Structure formats: structure tokens, C-alpha cells
């Protein structure tokens, strides 16, 4: 049986071929922190990290991440970025927020103090219809405070 690792835990991969990673996380494992807002790679709500790199789980087949390390919002709950988002009020309805935080934590892992330009570049694939953007930028620039 193929395996993959999610938030540090190994899972046997029993899903049928053709299942998306987002679907597998939400439906098979009950990890509903990963949201689906478009299901076709246009919004970033479903962002997770594969070996630390943010990817869109709704257009990633689960079998392509076999033997890789997947990190979802559930694996990032204690990351200081979460409190930074709350402190800065960087969320309104919150539906895009887990995806935003997954992208933001990958960004600061690579660039701990990103500039405004770097934040805009790294985060522009995560849509937020509530328009929490100014405070998302603030949360990312102050995450270590």
C-alpha cells in the first residue's frame, strides 16, 4: 500500500486513483481546515505545503504526493503566524484564511522578514473576497513580534 505523510503522521493511501489531495484530506481524513472555494486552481483556498512548498491541493492528485511530507493548516496551528493573523484582524469570514496562513508560513520559512513587494508576490495567488489584504500584509510583516 502506498503511503504519505501528513503533518508528520504516516497514512496508508487507500484512495482511488484520480482523487485530489484536497478531497482526500477533507473527505477521507476529515481534515476540513483545508478549504475548497473553486476546485480548479484559481483561488488558493486549498493551499497546503508539500515538502515545505505551497501547492494547490484541489488540482493535485493525491497519488502524486506519495512518500512526500504534506503540511496542512492543522499542522501549523501552533505557528506564531496564526496569532499574528488574529492580532492584526487579518481575517473576516475566515474561509480563505487557512490557505493564506499556509502560504504565509511557507513565505517566512524562506524569507523571515519579507518586504511588502515580496509579500504581495508570494500571496497574490490567495484570493480573499472579504478584502482582508491590508491586514494580511500587516500580519505577515509583524509575525515575529
Amino acid at each position, binding site marked *: 500500500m502506498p503511503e504519505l505523510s501528513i503533518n508528520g503522521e504516516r497514512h496508508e493511501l487507500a484512495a482511488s486513483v484520480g482523487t485530489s489531495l484536497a478531497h482526500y484530506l*477533507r*473527505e477521507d481524513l*476529515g*481534515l*476540513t*481546515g*483545508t*478549504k*475548497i*472555494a*473553486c*476546485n*480548479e486552481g*484559481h*483561488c488558493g*483556498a486549498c493551499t497546503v505545503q508539500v515538502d515545505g512548498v505551497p501547492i494547490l491541493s484541489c488540482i493535485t492528485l493525491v497519488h502524486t504526493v506519495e512518500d512526500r511530507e504534506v503540511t*496542512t*493548516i*492543522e499542522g501549523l*496551528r501552533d505557528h506564531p503566524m*496564526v*496569532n499574528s*493573523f*488574529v*492580532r492584526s*484582524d487579518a*481575517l*473576516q*469570514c*475566515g*474561509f*480563505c*484564511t*487557512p490557505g493564506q*496562513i499556509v502560504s504565509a508560513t511557507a513565505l517566512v520559512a524562506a524569507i523571515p522578514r519579507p518586504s511588502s513587494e515580496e*509579500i*504581495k*508576490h508570494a*500571496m*497574490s*495567488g*490567495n*484570493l*480573499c*473576497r*472579504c*478584502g*482582508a*489584504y*491590508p*491586514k*494580511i*500584509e500587516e500580519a505577515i510583516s509583524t509575525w515575529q513580534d
Partner: protein
Amino acid sequence: MARLIRTEKEVEGRYTEQWIVVDEDVLEQWPAGPLETVGRPVPRADGGQRARGEARYTADIKLPGMLHAAILRSPHAKARVRRIDTGRARRAPGVRAVLGPETGPLTDEPPYEGAPVAAVAAETSEQARTAVSLIEVEWERLEPLLDPEEAVRRNELIDEPNREERGEVERGLAESDAVVEAEYRTQTVLHNSMETHQAICEWDGDDRLTVYISTQFIWGVREEVAKRFGLPEDHVRVVCRFMGGGFGSKNGPGDYTYVAAELARATGRPVKCALTRREENLDSGNRNSTIQRLRVGARSDGTLTFLDGEFVNATGWDGWLASTGGPMRLLYACENVRTVEYGAKLNTPPMAAFRAPGFVEGTFGLECLLDELAAKLEIDPLELRRRNHSTHDAVDERPFSSKQLLECYRRAEPHWERRDEVRARSDATWKRGVGLASQVWYGGGGPPSYAWVRIGGDGRAAVITGMQDIGTGSATAMAQIAAEELGLPVDRIEVALGDSARGPYATISAGSSTIPSMGPAVRAAAADAARQLIEIAAQRYDREERVLSLKNGQIVSSDGGSWPLEEITGLLESGQILGKGSRGPNPTGMRVLTFGVQVAEVAVDVETGEVVVEKIVAIHDVGRVINPLGASSQVEGGIIQGLGHTLSEERLLDPSTGGNLTQTLDAYKIPTIADVPEIVTDLVDVPDEHLTNLGSKGLGEPPIIPTAAAIANAIRDATGADVRSLPITREEMLRALREASRQPAREEVGA
């Protein structure tokens, strides 16, 4: 004693009269300015749950045995089903039920693309969608009506045209030294809430139904669902704990809820019906496009002599006539005003309320027109607005309950005065300029709305009410209000909401009404509980009630004694103190409105037509501000949606078939983080002394209203070009620039 009174209620600018019962006790308003908790920044109470992905939205709820529905939607803008065969779908793997067009709300004569025709319930959503693709339909395609002007000519209207007139436009015209006439157009825009419309229906026997739904109004869903299925309202329970955005599109149950309920009844299992993003952009409502033919006249000193507007709303197959003429009627002092609004009934999806419906569109036209007039009269645009400031509602001669618009203008001055400096930063390609626009909207809320406050032995309090928090942070504001009244730190307040079986009736979260409607009820409930605490403490500590108060979690006596609240509540052990409160009436004979002004700074590349908005300053009067942190988020969110409306968003229909070409989020362009300008929020924060025990008005909608006109006016300031059509794409910008260069310089055409 409860008193029965008749009062006026307003939602999204539509007024109705109704009876309400009010309690005798009227609380004095708190003093203006920040208090212990109210008026201070508080991060949202459920922010952590949402941020950590623990919050369970309707999209995340999975009931035991739950089936998934999928809907077959009409691929044609107008068609008839000649023959339908669901046989293959019924036999497909996982399918448990199929409904054909004979079951409402499904139809065999779909009047717009995306109208629901048939539906399937299956074990998984993939199986349901596969089965839908196996339904065979023979269509008879009919000629759709798509052109709103043609619909008006043919009298195909959603409702009677709305004609309103005060004074005499012809007289005003005769008195005018200058007249400006122009046609403005706004496009159809789509809400695109991140959580799509969805509901789960579960029957308990054949006469009790639970609906989990992403909604802005659990009580409205309860009422409509109960009516449709002939159930007592208390047999319908509606739950919405967390929801992922609505912006006006989730005010009622919608077809998907009825489809889920019918399929749940047919199968005896809970059924979820969730729209895909493409379905969301086909058939979940829209801000309808408009055509506005406007005229204004003024004396040479800038005094408006008349305003005249004809507004054509492309309402679609269903919906209501949004108040596109509202700003023209309400914003300025002008004796002669005439508006006529048409709602064209078309073979296009029904409109739905979208954040200040009508006023966003109408303000774009009106406030651009005012600037065109200012240019002609050579009067400063801010000064022109000041000269036409209205002191009362001229529609029905009522005084405003409060109006701080002149204060907004005063605060706008330093930003407005940057004009020369901003313009001076222009070069051969990039032209820079500053523009402004004013805003008027409703947002006073109204009764009925109720809240309970429960205090337990541990000295913690719960606010219990059947309202919903659609992402505006209203739950946090309620916790602040209760904390203030109870003298408790805000982290000792829990807010329980979003379940019609677990709290009293509460307002719709639309029309900027949650805080002005619910806040006073929560304060009244907390005051009721506080009064009981004081009465008990007076007996326990042998003091007179009037010397006792609640502060910082203590019961404080004016003689210096103080006792932790738990000492009193602890006496009760498992006992509880229960307070109840309701929303009182709005001030009689007054008009409650919100006001504001925004100043935009833009840069325009005159070679490519690219428009970059560099800064927006938003100054609004919404009465008392409960949570300045959440309030600034609301302002930013409104402006960013306004920015999309102004520059990038447009639902495109194929003009020959009526087919939607922008169903996906790569085709339909909402703003990203990279598009966001600097935003400065300045709220006047003066309580409306006539409005409720709080003096707070609503804030959800005002910030989106003036954004488009402020940007368009800044573009005119930068380039001299009149952009009159949204979105301001590069094509539109270049068209306006070409037109401006063909005209003689503005100085020569001045009045």
C-alpha cells in the same frame, strides 16, 4: 410593562411599517468616545478558530449517512424541455434519487442560463455530478431577451417603473446657469463569496426539518422553508455557526435548499446541495448592470437647480428594483429632483442584493456628474458639495437623526489639498490626480431583534441570540457591548449565535443592520442582568442599590467596598441570572442615514490606459464605533470590493446566446493583494443621539459606495478624461482619453 407600538423598518433602503412590543426601560446612551471596552480595538473572538481551520462552515459539515446533490442547469438562456430521460442517471453508481422538472423549484421552461432543471442525490458529489451528465434532454431553444433597453421599450419589466419627483425640473432648468448631461453605465458584478451557496437538509420524521446553511438570515430561511413545506416554523431549525461570506447574496434559502430538502425527503437521508464555483457565478445572484441618463443644472455659484435621472436596471429574470436613483434623491439639497427607475426583465439570472444595491451604481453616476459640473462651473468639487449640503431629508421633509457629513468634509481637506503635489508627480506617461466622492446610505437597523444574557456561578456571561456573524465581526462587537454593561473583561463573555433553536429572533445580517439592530438588544439584556446582580448584591452586602455598580469584574460600592462578581454569582451554585433585551423603535419622524466621503489618488498611464489606484482615504459617519479594529477591516474590505467593481470585475455574457463567459475565478477578476492601494480609515465616531441606547449605525455597506466615483474623478483630475463606464478597463480608459483629446481644452468650454 410591554408596550405595543407601530414603527418603521428599513432593510436595504426598502421601508415597511410594523407593530413591535417594547419594554418600558429605556437606557441612556453611554458618553461619547472610547469606554472600558466599547470603542477600543478588540481582535475578533472567533478569529483563532477560523484561522486554525477549526471553525466548521456549512461546507465542512458531514452528517452520518449524508448524500450529495447535483443539479442539471439549463445551458440555454431561454429554452423548453421537449423530452427528458433520467433513466441512465437513475441507474448510475451511487445514485439514490433523481428529481425531474415536475418537482419545484426545478422547471422545464428555464428562463435563463443556469436555471435548475433536474437534480440527483448520490453517495458522493462526484457520483451525483456524473449522474447529472447522464441525463438526456432534448431542448427547444427559444430567442432570449438580453438587451435591457429593448426590454424597457417592450415594457418587459420586473415591476412598475419607480417614478419620484419633487419640485419641478423644468423650473429648475430655466433657473440654471450651467447644465451637464451625461450617460453612465455600470456592469454586472458577481459576489463570489469564498464559500459557495450551500445547504444540508435533514428530516426528522415527515414534519420536522433541520437546515444547515451558509446564510445571512437564519430566521428568514426558517420562515420561507416552513411556508414552502407547510410546517409550523418551530418545526424548522436553521443553523449557521460560521459562514464564508455573503455580501447580500445569501439573504434567503434559494433553490439549492429546496432541492436538498426534496431529495432528503425522497431518500430519507440528509442531503447536502453545494454549488460549484461555476454554478455560483451562474445562478446565485449578481449586482445588475445599469444605464443612467443624468442631468444636473446649477446657478453660477454652484447651487443645484435641478437633478434629473433615468435609470435602467438590467434586473434579470427575477429580483427587485434596486434603488439606483436613491443617491440622487437623498445626497444633496436640491428642490427639483426627478428620477425614474426601470427594472428590465430579461433572460438572464436574477439579481440579488450586493453590498449597498443601487447606491453603489447610482453614486458612481451622480458623483461623476457633480464633478463634471464642478469643472464646468470652475468650482472646487469639495466646495460644490459643501454648498449643496442638505440639512434634512428633502424626500419627506424629515430631519436627520444625525449627520456628520460636514465634519467628514473637514477631515477630507488635508487629503484633498495634496492635489497639486500629487499632480506634480506626473510625467510624460504617468498622469496623477486626486478625486473625491460623497456617500449616503441607510444603515439604521430596526426592530425586532432580541438577546438574552446568562450569567453563571463562575461569573462568566453568555450572550445568546439567533443572529449570525457573516464575517463582519459582529459577534465580537456584541461581546464588547455586554462586557461594557456588565463591567466584565471581554474575554469573560461568550457569544452563542447561529441557531434558531438556541436563541431568540435576530436581524438579517444585511443592509448594514447587525450592529444597529442587535447591539441595543444585547445592551438591554446585559443591563437587565446587571440590574439583577446589583439587587442581589445590595441584599448580600447590605447596601443600597444606588451605591453599587459593576466594574472590572467587581461589584463596587461608592463607600469604597468591592467584591469579586463570583462572590455573588457563586452563591447561586448551578443557578443562573438571566437577562433579556429587545431592540426598541427608531426615532419617530426622523431619517436615519449614514454618510461619508472618500478621497482617491490615482496614476494613469496615458499610453496603455493602465490605471493604478495609489491611495484611498475613507472618512465615514456611522455613529458610535464599537470596535475600531473590526471597523477598519470592514472599511478596507468594502473599498477593495469597490476597487474590483471599478477596475477589473465584469460578468460577460455572450451577446447572441446569453451564455456566461466568466464563470471561473481566472476569467472573473477580483482584486488580489497586489492590487491593493494604501487605505486610510477615519471614522467620525460621534454617537447618533437619537438612535437607540447605543447611537451606532451600520458600517458594512457605506465604504463600497463612493469608491468608484472617487477613482473616476481622480482620473479626470489626472487626465481631463471623463470615464463614464465601469469597469474602467484599459479600453475604456483609452477611449476616454481619445475623446478628451478631440475636445477643446476644458477652459474654453467652461460656463
